[in-house]
């Protein structure tokens, strides 16, 4: 806390407050918002308003308060805005999934079917698991720099996790045409979400180790310096494998994500624009190749260009999402008063259009700003932290969220072709949620290192200077002392 300036050799930098109080306050605010959202949904869906809702809100606050105390215990200087932003996004996601559950149940009742399983209960369970992982990561990773020692291990583990669903038989790994799952019983996880974090750790550690090679040794070509091939080899292998595996598993969104991460980390590590140019050329080449090679990519592009030409077929989902956003307009229909359930996968890939229909442009802009706060705080930690590995790690972790946001929202709003990715914390999906909690825990760890005061040197008890005797530093040779003094 801001102590009065102590007697020190240098003027102390103004001490940053730890911000834990602000964090708790904002968490309580988020709990109020989420509880309010739940009450509005229940009221608009003609459900009975009971005190249970209040208890649910308190339970939500309790969960995040536990996370808050873990932060207080293990990362006391961490950024105070990251956890509340995450809590708000996750809470809004839960409310929206619950709202879609209600709609599904109502429709099932209308058709005389059995009520479908509740998604929100699963998602709440995943949230709890995610928060447990969050606490464990904060507790076990006491310093982010220790992760750099496991760079190659993390990269290897990440590649295995990525490749696993591609190797496993389709009955276990395939859902809706994308082979990126591992399912046991009713529970499915997407190992790719965890591979994302592991590969960011690997890329950061690798780039820090080889940083000099990337920015010094190189060959000039067309006015740009390119690194030697052998320096690049491990990186290219890792990239090629991840992209290859992803193409094989038919998940182009994640493939794009990995490529983007690698490019940004290279740029952040070397500050060379040539990497961006090379990367964009690679991207254009890859996109053209994918368009020509894969039928499902062509379908996606066709839908993107004109979703209404095949409205009853492939364009139905995107078309309905656009209608939903249009219905929402500027102010939205009000939570629980719209029909977001008309969009297939309204709770996962298309939760953005569900929120847009019921909260409107004003609400979407607010949510986008919450994401923006989360991402800029991550990038700010990257700027402020003192070691290069931490810088790259925080950049990668923040950027992966930003890119995911762009790819998903761009896809839903028909800015870019649709690729199947989830919105961090909002969308329904256990693996994504749990992995993102681990990601945020690492981000908090880095921001803790960035904001913590420098370790103080142990103070040796000293006599007050007024009573201290003058120390004889140098035997005064009067003439030389005089001449040196005169020179100065």
């Amino acid at each position, binding site marked *: 806390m801001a102590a009065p*300036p102590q*007697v*020190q*050799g*240098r*003027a102390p*930098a*103004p001490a*940053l407050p730890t*911000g834990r109080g*602000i964090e708790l306050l*904002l968490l309580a*605010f*988020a709990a*109020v*918002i989420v509880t*309010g*959202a739940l009450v*509005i949904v229940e*009221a*608009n869906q*003609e459900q009975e308003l009971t005190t249970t809702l209040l208890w649910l809100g308190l339970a939500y606050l309790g969960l995040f308060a536990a996370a808050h105390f873990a932060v207080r215990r293990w990362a006391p200087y961490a950024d*105070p*805005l990251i956890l*509340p*932003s995450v809590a*708000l996004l996750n809470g809004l996601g839960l409310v929206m999934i619950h709202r879609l559950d209600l709609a599904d149940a109502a429709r099932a009742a209308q058709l005389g079917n059995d009520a479908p399983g509740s998604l929100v209960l699963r998602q709440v369970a995943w949230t709890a698991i995610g928060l447990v992982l969050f606490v464990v990561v904060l507790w076990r990773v006491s310093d982010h720099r220790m992760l750099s020692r496991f760079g190659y291990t993390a990269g290897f583990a990440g590649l295995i996790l990525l490749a696993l669903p591609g190797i496993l038989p389709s009955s276990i790994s395939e859902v809706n045409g994308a082979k990126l799952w591992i399912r046991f019983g009713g529970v499915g996880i997407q190992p790719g979400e965890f591979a994302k974090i592991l590969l960011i750790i690997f890329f950061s550690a690798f780039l820090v180790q080889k940083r000099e090679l990337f920015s010094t040794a190189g060959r000039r070509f067309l006015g740009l310096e390119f690194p030697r091939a052998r320096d690049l080899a491990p990186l290219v292998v890792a990239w090629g494998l991840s992209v290859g595996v992803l193409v094989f598993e038919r998940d182009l969104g994640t493939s794009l994500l990995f490529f983007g991460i690698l490019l940004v980390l290279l740029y952040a590590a070397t500050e060379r624009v040539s990497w961006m140019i090379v990367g964009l050329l690679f991207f254009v080449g890859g996109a053209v190749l994918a368009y020509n090679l894969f039928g499902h990519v062509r379908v996606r592009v066709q839908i993107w260009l004109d979703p209404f030409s095949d409205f009853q077929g492939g364009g139905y989902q995107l078309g309905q999402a656009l209608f939903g956003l249009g219905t929402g307009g500027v*102010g*939205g*229909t*009000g*939570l629980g*008063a719209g029909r977001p359930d008309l969009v297939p996968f309204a709770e996962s890939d298309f939760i953005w259009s569900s929120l847009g229909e019921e*909260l*409107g442009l*004003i*609400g979407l802009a*607010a*949510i986008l*700003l*919450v994401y923006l*706060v989360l991402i*800029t*705080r991550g990038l700010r930690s990257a700027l*402020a932290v003192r070691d290069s590995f931490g810088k790259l790690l925080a950049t990668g972790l923040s950027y992966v969220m930003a890119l995911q946001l762009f790819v998903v929202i761009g896809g839903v709003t028909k800015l870019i072709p649709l690729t199947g990715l989830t919105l961090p914390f909002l969308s329904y999906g256990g693996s994504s949620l749990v992995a993102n909690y681990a990601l945020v825990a690492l981000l908090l760890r880095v921001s803790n290192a960035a904001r913590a005061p420098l370790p103080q040197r142990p103070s040796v008890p*000293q006599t007050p*200077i*007024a009573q201290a005797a*003058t120390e004889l*530093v*140098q035997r*005064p040779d*009067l003439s030389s*002392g*005089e001449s*040196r*003094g*005169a*020179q*100065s």
Partner: protein
Amino acid sequence: MPELVLQLTRAGFLALLWLFVLFAMRIVRSDLYAASGLRAIMPGGSRAARRSGRGRMARQLLVTQGPLAGSRITLDSRPILIGRADDSTLKLDDDYASTRHARIAPQGEDWYVEDLGSTNGTYLDRAKVTGPTRVPLGVPVRIGKTVIELRS
């Protein structure tokens, strides 16, 4: 639900969401200034900082140790030169001091001490002064056998 209540909750919820965003932005802003050291721009902190600063601005320089102990120099906006040279503001008669030993100069509301390449160095409390360093009130600056302090 009645239409009016629906509209009110709808607007109220959006307002609440934006309130959260604005609150977060406010913290982002205050952090921004805290990190760059520009405290004066912070709306809340500026007044407190200025209040505490005005009452405790350095007004005089007091020699607490050495042959000249007890002498005072009233500070204005001009820098104070310390050394054995005749044109020093504080002329020391001290074998351990150099001809032009140190300078204490104001910058804004603070005073900074700067060593002018002296043989035996200038010490702010216990630390050797290497570059211009802010001198807080009441912190001893040691030059040879002489110790000076800034007082309000």
